């Protein structure tokens, strides 16, 4: 393809919402990727065309495996939730359960902190603290404040971790109580796609 007239080609982009792409537009964009002279002319005519060269997400080699593990952890968390604590005896926590909880913890804690305000699995990380420290001393308080816009932190007592029936009607409490770490996460799946 020979170098097109970019000032003519880009005119449709700012002429009105109902303007159709001119003939040869797609081919010209492909040509743009390999022609330095065209890039200069094209960006002069419409600088926003440079945004079409937006970088990629740079996937890791094991991206799919990580994704699969993360999704699996979320599904396990759902299964943990479906088997409420009242239906299990404390002795009923077998090796499988411990394994799944550990997996859930490793996958969910960072995710919950980042995604807390997002829809769907919008979560509220209430506390993460070493097992022996009292909840009042938790270092996660700033995050609590950031992730829980509708709740008053002051009103949460130290016994809140055992609460299933919480102030958010659609929320679920996950409480991972292990030897070295005690994690409480609120997950709100009430927002639909």
């Amino acid at each position, binding site marked *: 393809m020979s170098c097109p007239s970019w000032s003519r080609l880009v005119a449709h982009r700012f002429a009105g919402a109902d303007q159709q792409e001119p003939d040869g537009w797609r081919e010209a964009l492909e040509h743009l990727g390999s022609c330095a002279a065209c890039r200069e002319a094209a960006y002069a005519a419409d600088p926003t065309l440079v945004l079409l060269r*937006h970088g990629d997400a740079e*996937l890791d080699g094991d991206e799919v495996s990580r994704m699969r593990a993360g999704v699996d952890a979320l599904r396990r968390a759902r299964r943990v939730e479906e088997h409420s604590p009242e239906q299990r005896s404390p002795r009923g926590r077998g090796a499988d359960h411990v394994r799944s909880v550990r997996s859930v913890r490793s996958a969910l804690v960072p995710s919950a902190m980042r995604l807390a305000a997002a829809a769907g699995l919008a979560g509220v990380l209430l506390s993460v603290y070493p097992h022996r420290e009292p909840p009042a001393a938790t270092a996660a308080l700033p995050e609590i404040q950031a992730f829980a816009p509708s709740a008053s932190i002051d009103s949460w007592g130290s016994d809140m971790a055992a609460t299933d029936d919480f102030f958010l009607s659609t929320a679920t409490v996950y409480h991972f109580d292990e030897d070295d770490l005690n994690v409480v996460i609120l997950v709100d799946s009430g927002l639909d796609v």
Partner: protein
Amino acid sequence: MPELVYSERRHRAAWEERTDRDLLEGIRARDEAALDELITRKTGPLLQLAYRIVGDREEARDIVQVAFFRVWEQVERFDSRWSPNTWIYRIVNNLAIDHLRSRQSRERQVEPVRQHLRQVASGRSQRTLESLDGSEVAGIFRELAGELTDRQRSVFILRELEGLSSREVAEIVECRESTVRNHLFNARKVLRRALLERYPEYARRHLGGEER
């Protein structure tokens, strides 16, 4: 046990040739191998989309992870008249936009990027738009996109960066095609104005170029 493993592998491999729609039907039947195949197939493109919307790779990963979980949990809501791709893209788009609406996230992501870009721009005054690499362009877009509405941002990314048709975009963002065209038109205008205002070092060159 080896037979079991072999059987499982064959079961997984059987999904590789199936369509996206078949995979969703498999997921509806609670077949984990179908979900695995969907993750294998869609992780790359969905991460790309989420990254372009939120501008942060780790957050994009979390969003896509939750999106796949939603597909598993809410597959009953998938209407077979829809395009599977459109439905999954819609989930990711909505999650990503909701994420952006978090003021905390917005503040965290924009300021450091703005500072970084100012440094880059001031330190490389001889650079031109042609010479920016993909990650620099991504940084510029991240800043400029702060001026767009959520809808404009989604439409611009889906139509211009992802290359989807107006019809597909309309289905993803749940509006008419004419509305998509309006959002796209306005998004381009906003981005051009913002680009020329915020990066006059580039604008000068290109306005000069226009005069030639």
